[in-house]
């Protein structure tokens, strides 16, 4: 009986990280609906598990004369993730706070540049949440 009980506990312990990953996976699938047919995925999926007011930092290179779509999601509803996009000198280029926490936005880069994308849960009281970022470009 004791062995069964402890096997159960161990199984539960091993399952927890998988459950967290599954949460991210579901959010990524929900987020993907913002990528319409004219946009091509960059072939990557960016995710980070955020606790409370933690901020995830994503570094990305964007090529000039290209229009990108960035989708940012956390949870199953839109608008749960705040994003801020900075250049390498930390000049703020965009934040979705100014646009009703829009879950996606398009960016036309006239010249190539490196950016830092910060993602943070909208609700600072939230215990945790998976932040998913998807980047695609217009053909």
């Amino acid at each position: 009986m004791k062995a069964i009980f402890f096997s159960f506990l161990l199984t539960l312990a091993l399952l927890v990280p998988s459950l967290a990953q599954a949460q991210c996976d579901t959010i990524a699938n929900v987020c993907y609906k913002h990528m319409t047919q004219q946009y091509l995925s960059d072939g990557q999926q960016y995710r980070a598990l955020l606790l409370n007011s933690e901020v995830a930092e994503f570094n990305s290179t964007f090529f000039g004369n290209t229009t990108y779509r960035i989708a940012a999601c956390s949870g199953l509803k839109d608008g749960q993730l705040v994003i801020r996009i900075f250049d390498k000198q930390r000049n703020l280029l965009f934040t979705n706070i100014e646009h009703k926490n829009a879950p996606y936005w398009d960016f036309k880069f006239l010249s190539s540049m490196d950016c830092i994308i910060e993602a943070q849960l909208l609700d600072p009281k939230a215990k945790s949440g998976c932040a998913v970022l998807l980047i695609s470009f217009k053909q």
Partner: protein
Amino acid sequence: MRLFSLPIPALRMVAAGLALAFMASCGGGKKETTDVAETLDSNKANIVAVGDKLFSIPSPIQTALLLKKCGAAYNKSMLNIPANITHYSTTVKKALNLGVYGADLGYVILYQQSQDAMGYLSIIKKLSDDVGISGAFNEQLLKRFQSNLGNRDSLLAMSSEAYRSSDAFLKENDRTDASALILAGGWIEGLYFTTQMVSGKVTDKSALIQRIGEQKTTLENLIALLTKYYQQEGYTEFIDALIDLASEFDKVEMTYTYQKPTTDEANKLTTINCTTTVKLSDELLKTITEKAAALRNSVIQ
């Protein structure tokens, strides 16, 4: 659905507590307890750590798009031949060449070489089986691909999506090393394309030179992604070659000027007006071209 109502940190704490209790009740000593705690912590890091080394590597399809835009003709001899697959016996080589063949696939699709595209997809399926990501490149994808051979946009979308699924699967399963290698392979092939074509017949040579110079930061990001695997078998020599190439890219002069972005609220579009200029001498271009070719050839052999 219940999962989402449970705070993950609390779940982690419960899991850690239960695992520690289990080890203690089994009479495990201090060492075993520590091992379990470290295992749980590394699982936590697996999810959170993306944040501290989260770099995006531009898609090699963007490079192929630029080549086409610059009037470069289709050049099959530039691609890695499918028969080379027999040379790839290690996981490192397989993952790298999964990236190389992915870039080749994007290139042949863009130039509407349907039969070549099917050949590359078959090779990619074989390699993805070997790397353990067969879910993304399954028989269903092959059939969809076959039935859309005349539709370039659909093929590009399918292949990009398959690579995104693979990337997600590898990250979910704590195989970020393979994910980084696939990106590296794709990047090397894209750089190889550009450096080979820049000396050929193109309508906008300066755009290609600019794109080559812009790879400076992407290469830095790639090295940052791979560095933690440096001591692992098959990585050291490869990363050293990347660092050697980066030492040449360090000589590329880049000047950045900030300009305020403009936003079109109605169309959810922000135009980023900042500019970056790239200065790359002919001599440096020649050196980068040679080193890129040597690196790429070492990857595909």
